[in-house]
């Protein structure tokens, strides 16, 4: 779709992206003089995605992965930081410019039951984005493009006038993917797009993501909590824990030799479908830390098996460790 620049192949660059939610208490807590608490959902993260690449963003519930997706698409406004698409800061765009830019970034959501309008036919769902972005004018042109999209995601002409409820979960996710592709985006963000699907269907949709990437030269930001899915789909991986990226690097390197104690713990906790593999176990103490007014220092403090005195005081920065890898840990 887009010619690949030999020198500048960076599509998305995120710097210091931050989203803090103010938790205003009720009037009584205000009268009592309690301070407003701050939920640091995303707290200064950096990552980049090159053209044609898949970055997998993985972490447990509440770590800020979905907030990141919404920030990158400006569905919510960040507290700070930059989101640079093709070297321009999205956050500085006018509403009009932003609307045009939405064409380049499309989202596929987790639940294909709530992300498709039950009252519209598939033809309408897939052609409306084209109309909005002026990609097809005549009815014939739209229909032709919709048919082409359906074909590419593994559906056929007989499905075009049906409603979402007539489809299974896997088929609906195919429609959601077709809708994302209808405006010829460069970056597709999948926010847990296969989590709601049964394993046999999940494999079909993962293959579809792969095939479409090859056909259209797409770039993916793929968000999931399932580590084997992330391993399968990603070229590079970023691991999030309570609003921070703790480790990032090529997928193979991270899965074969995780460096951050949290990444290690995540991998050790996955039950692999092979009785010969070691059973899942938890190498961390306690439960996930809270993002509300987190103490200074590393977010993993108090749970980490390799804690140093410095960990409670200084937040470890994400530093390069060679091989395109970065880790945020004091004790490597």
């Amino acid at each position: 779709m887009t010619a690949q620049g030999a020198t500048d192949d960076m599509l998305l660059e995120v710097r210091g992206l931050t989203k803090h939610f103010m938790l205003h208490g009720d009037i009584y807590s205000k009268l009592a003089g309690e301070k407003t608490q701050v939920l640091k959902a995303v707290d200064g993260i950096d990552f980049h995605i090159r053209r044609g690449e898949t970055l997998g963003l993985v972490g447990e519930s509440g770590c800020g992965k979905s907030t990141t997706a919404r920030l990158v698409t400006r569905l919510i406004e960040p507290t700070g930081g930059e989101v640079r698409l093709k070297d321009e800061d999205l956050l500085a765009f006018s509403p009009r410019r932003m609307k045009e830019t939405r064409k380049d970034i499309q989202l596929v959501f987790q639940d294909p039951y709530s992300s498709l309008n039950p009252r519209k036919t598939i033809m309408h769902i897939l052609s409306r984005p084209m109309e909005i972005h002026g990609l097809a004018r005549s009815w014939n042109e739209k229909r032709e493009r919709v048919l082409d999209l359906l074909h590419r995601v593994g559906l056929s002409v007989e499905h075009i006038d049906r409603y979402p409820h007539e489809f299974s979960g896997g088929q609906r996710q195919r429609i959601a993917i077709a809708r994302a592709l209808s405006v010829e985006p460069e970056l597709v963000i999948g926010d847990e797009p296969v989590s709601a699907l049964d394993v046999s269907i999940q494999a079909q949709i993962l293959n579809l993501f792969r095939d479409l990437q090859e056909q259209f030269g797409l770039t993916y930001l793929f968000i999931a909590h399932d580590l084997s899915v992330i391993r399968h789909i990603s070229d590079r991986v970023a691991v999030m824990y309570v609003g921070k990226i703790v480790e990032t690097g090529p997928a193979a390197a991270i899965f074969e030799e995780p460096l951050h104690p949290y990444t290690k713990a995540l991998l050790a906790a996955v039950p692999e479908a092979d009785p010969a593999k070691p059973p899942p176990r938890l190498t961390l103490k306690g439960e996930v830390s809270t993002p509300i007014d987190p103490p200074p220092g590393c977010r993993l403090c108090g749970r980490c098996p390799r804690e140093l005195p410095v960990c409670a005081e200084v937040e470890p920065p994400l530093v390069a460790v060679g091989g395109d890898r970065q880790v945020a840990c004091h004790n490597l």
Partner: protein
Amino acid sequence: MPETVLELDDLTVRFRLRRGDLTAVNGVSFSIGRGETFGLVGESGSGKSVTARAIMRLIPDPPGEIQRGRILFGGDNVLDKNAAEMRALRGRHIAMVFQEPMSALNPVFTVCEQISDALRTNLGLSKREARERVVELLALVGIPSPQKRLDSYVHEFSGGMRQRVMLAMALSCNPGFLIADEPTTALDVTIQATILELITSMIDKLGMSLLFITHNLGVVAHSCDKIGVMYASHLVELGDKREIFANPQHPYTVGLLNSIPRLDIQARHLTPIAGSVCNMMEPPSGCKFHPRCAHAMDVCRREVPKLKEVAPGHHAACHLHDRGAAT
């Protein structure tokens, strides 16, 4: 061979819906021995949860109906018991852990009140005795400072802690048999690991038998001895865990295992099962899996294959194995 605790024989559960009849469980037979852990695996709608609920007689009637079969628990047919006898069985002898602790626990009672309710009804403990026992139970399932959490409400606990509360409630009357219906599905992977470890250690410590229901093959690979695979209301494969993973005999099991992305190697493409699960209101004739099966033959369209032994202790319901027997 350990003594059989639970035996399902030709269990068939049907729901009479306005749109027509739906057979959710169709001729399922298996048995679980004392101290054994049995994993029942299948995708959504395969009938695994209905099987579990049928054992506890929790199928709402109408529209549900146990059409055929027997459920023998300790030699007695559960289906012959009246309401009072069932109450005596539930909680005291068979306990159940559900997927959604938030909806399975009562939000308007404290943890102590809900757990002691079962203790006072089933074991006749006094209020004070029950309270002491609840503290013990919460400590047993690894809730830190149980004395302090005793009078908390469910919403004050995290997802993992709620699941521990539910497990404490299930274990409260020392049942010999535990049914866990997707107990870790709603949990994050690190919390899942701790809950699975907890369940396995409780089973060992208290000498219980376990029926574990899940869609996650990774989970059964590590927490069960025997596995049953369900597809569209039928039990299609049954056997020892290692046998099933190393040497799956039903095309559906093979497909399921191939569909899972792996953690140790990265494949360019996965090998999914073609098509999607059949509509249970209008199931296909013969073997329910034949429209998705690469090996489907004429006989598959005509006849439902019976579960038969293909190797010692390993059963599969597939016509491919008839051919071997005929020649």
